[in-house]
């Protein structure tokens, strides 16, 4: 793999975290335009922990995830009583407020004769952990995908759990969910916290991947994209948003087939999909059909096993 390819694959991995974060809220039926704020909070926090306080990388990531969760809890308490459009607007307003706060945020210390730390609109440079500790681009890509794999595994366990069932029930019909005995607001708050954790973790990885962050990166554009990934890729499984990221960054951006017209193609794709497949490519029905097909497939008989065994030996 050449460096450029590693860069693209790493980007896909990192952006997948924001996409999964938005997806988790979409599962509960809420549209958030603000997940990029938790991504930003995670990025700044983990950058401060490693580049300024000189603490280990794992601690930086943990701190990023934890502040993402804490921020999501604080925002969720007042906003999760809102619904639909009101909630969407509230998350948008919050995210823009966070971005502007980062434009004002200055906290720098001198390291090696140079100022390090967030410097308002100039951003936060020199988050050089991977260079200082000689982590290769390939190794860092493995770290990203290791954590992404662990997150996905966690989401799969969640979807099979009682809590995951509650997310889907609320997403389909919150009143009906309440009349089945689901405590709607606490369950939604849990979803928001988990989404904040995932975005914060992704932000930490992003800061260390690019070595610099600045408020402009966490523009609403990123939030809209993260939402769109789930809506394109599908809401039936956590693989849906990943598919969305791969289509957008992997196909549209990286191949340059559409050069400067990518946004137009992407916007058009979202519009068309919302009409023909409102719950995305990997929607519940397709996932359901695949699960049934897999369950129905007969187990290989012992005879086959021996044949395979002979061939191998």
């Amino acid at each position, binding site marked *: 793999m050449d460096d450029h390819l590693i860069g693209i694959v790493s980007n896909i991995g990192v952006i997948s975290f924001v996409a999964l974060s938005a997806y988790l809220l979409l599962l509960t039926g809420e549209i958030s335009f603000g997940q990029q704020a938790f991504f930003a909070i995670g990025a700044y926090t983990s950058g401060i922990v490693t580049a300024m306080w000189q603490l280990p990388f794992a601690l930086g990531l943990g701190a990023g995830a934890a502040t993402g969760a804490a921020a999501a809890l604080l925002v969720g308490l007042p906003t999760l009583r809102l619904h639909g459009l009101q909630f969407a607007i509230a998350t948008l307003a919050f995210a823009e407020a966070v971005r502007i706060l980062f434009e004002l945020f200055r906290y720098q210390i001198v390291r090696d004769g140079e100022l390090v730390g967030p410097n308002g609109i100039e951003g936060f440079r020199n988050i050089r952990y991977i260079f200082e500790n000689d982590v290769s681009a390939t190794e860092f890509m493995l*770290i990203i995908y290791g954590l992404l794999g662990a997150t996905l595994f966690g989401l799969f366990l969640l979807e099979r759990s009682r809590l995951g069932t509650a997310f889907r029930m609320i997403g389909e019909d919150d009143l009906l969910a309440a009349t089945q005995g689901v405590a709607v607001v606490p369950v939604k708050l849990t979803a928001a916290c988990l989404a904040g954790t995932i975005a914060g973790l992704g932000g930490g990885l992003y800061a260390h991947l690019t070595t610099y962050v600045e408020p402009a990166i966490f523009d609403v554009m990123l939030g809209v994209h993260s939402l769109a990934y789930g809506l394109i890729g599908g809401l039936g499984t956590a693989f849906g948003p990943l598919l969305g990221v791969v289509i957008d960054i992997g196909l549209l951006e990286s191949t340059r087939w559409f050069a*400067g017209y990518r946004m137009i193609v992407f916007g058009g794709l979202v519009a068309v999909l919302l009409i023909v497949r409102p719950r995305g490519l990997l929607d519940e029905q397709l996932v359901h059909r695949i699960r049934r097909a897999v369950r129905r497939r007969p187990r290989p008989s012992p005879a086959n096993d021996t044949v395979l065994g002979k061939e191998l030996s």
Partner: protein
Amino acid sequence: MIAVPGFLLSLLVAMVLSGSGLAAGVKAKAEVSCAATAKSLEYDCAIKLSDQRSGAALTGVDVTVGADMPSMPMAHNVKPVKAVPDSAAGTYRARILLEMHGDWAVKVDLAGPVRDRIVKSMRFEPKP
């Protein structure tokens, strides 16, 4: 499902590898200036690399120059190009082709004897 333990294992390995790495000695400093060329949106960038601490010129480094637009995350990033050494020690040149004018974050990636990345915020405007 089988892929998951594999992922976790690779994560563990990568964590151990990253933890065992010794702090690399050199921190690079770069001065970048880009001039418009005859071709629209193409810029000729001169890069001067030095050691942040000693001030010595950094020679023999693999330099790659890329750029992206912070306000369009993951979009409009310029495919990185290799820079070639210029006449003076520690100087390199690269031509980048942007997609539009505006504020860009120019990324200078160093490989070989020195590994580092320097990011410069630069504004590219049409020729007057």
